[in-house]
């Protein structure tokens, strides 16, 4: 720090720095952004949630339905199917938290692996963008029936392919088909925390 020049002041000499020291200092130290110590870990699903388990859905449009667990997707999401023919639940993703696993399991070894692979890709369930946007005119037009939502035929075919072997194994056991068809609900005096599933 000996930049600058020495100058003569009367009798004495003094070093005058080329760059003067700052008069002002910030009161606070500049804050450092916190280091993130969290990391994204793969979700750990309950041990009871093995593929083939019959689940009771607790939330959403199909709450109360008993469905078959097909596969774990990432981040605690489960892939389930009704089967559609029995209880109207299609291939669907559900949150593992909003599900009760029963102790009943069925064999899903015969499920078509290829379609299952296709269904479990991340963008299988994303909605397709509409080609034509609804105009204001159409919105105010009365009397005309809105177009009915059509199920893509590819989806229906996938559903059939997945459900086929499940249906055959369900048929083998008595009462199992009607069990899947009925919805679950609590009755008087039922204590879900004390019940065995």
């Amino acid at each position, binding site marked *: 720090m000996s930049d600058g020049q020495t100058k003569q002041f009367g009798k004495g000499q003094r070093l005058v720095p080329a760059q003067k020291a700052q008069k002002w200092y910030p009161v606070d130290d500049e804050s450092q952004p916190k280091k993130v110590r969290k990391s994204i870990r793969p979700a750990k699903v309950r041990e009871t949630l093995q593929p083939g388990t*019959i689940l*009771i859905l607790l939330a959403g449009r199909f709450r109360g339905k008993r469905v078959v667990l097909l596969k774990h997707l990432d981040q605690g999401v489960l892939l389930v199917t009704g089967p559609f023919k029995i209880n109207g639940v299609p291939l669907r993703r559900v949150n593992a938290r909003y599900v009760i696993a*029963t*102790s*009943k399991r069925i064999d899903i070894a015969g499920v078509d692996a290829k379609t299952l692979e296709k269904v479990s890709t991340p963008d299988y369930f994303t909605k397709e963008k509409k080609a034509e946007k609804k105009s204001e005119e159409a919105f105010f037009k009365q009397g005309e029936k809105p177009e009915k939502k059509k199920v893509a035929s590819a989806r229906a075919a996938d559903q059939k392919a997945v459900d086929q072997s499940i249906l055959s194994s369900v048929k083998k056991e008595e*009462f*199992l088909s*009607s*069990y899947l068809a*009925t919805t*679950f609900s609590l009755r008087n005096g039922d204590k879900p925390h*004390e*019940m*065995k*599933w």
Partner: protein
Amino acid sequence: MADIDVTLASWKLVEVGRLVLIRRGPYAGKLAAVVEIVDHRRVLVDGPSGEEQKIVPRHVLPLAHATLTHFVIPQLPRAAGTGPVKKLWAKNEIDGKWAKSGFAQKTDRAERRKNLTDFERFKVLRLRKQARYEVQKSYAKVKAAAAKS
């Protein structure tokens, strides 16, 4: 004067040899025999059952925590040790007699019902419905036959 039949009321007494059902505490639901009466509130009990998980160790039990049963081990000596009690217990077939009693059967059934899984509960529902249907069908048949004649 008319003859009057006087029958002795069959009280369940707190006596040595009386079998009690424990209703509270760590041995709740288990059977034990009164071995000695400590005072008017407490008894010394011992339950050397043949089944491992039903054994009650010898201890003092408040009578408020017990229900008297109809069963008695006859001629159990006062303050008999666990060995002799076990021998007499086996000789009188207490375990078998208790298992046949209405109370034990009822509790067993309740326990089994409680431990049913969801699918089993559903099957019970369906089978009960089927049984009810058959009963009502045959009842209607009998009723119709009775109305005709």
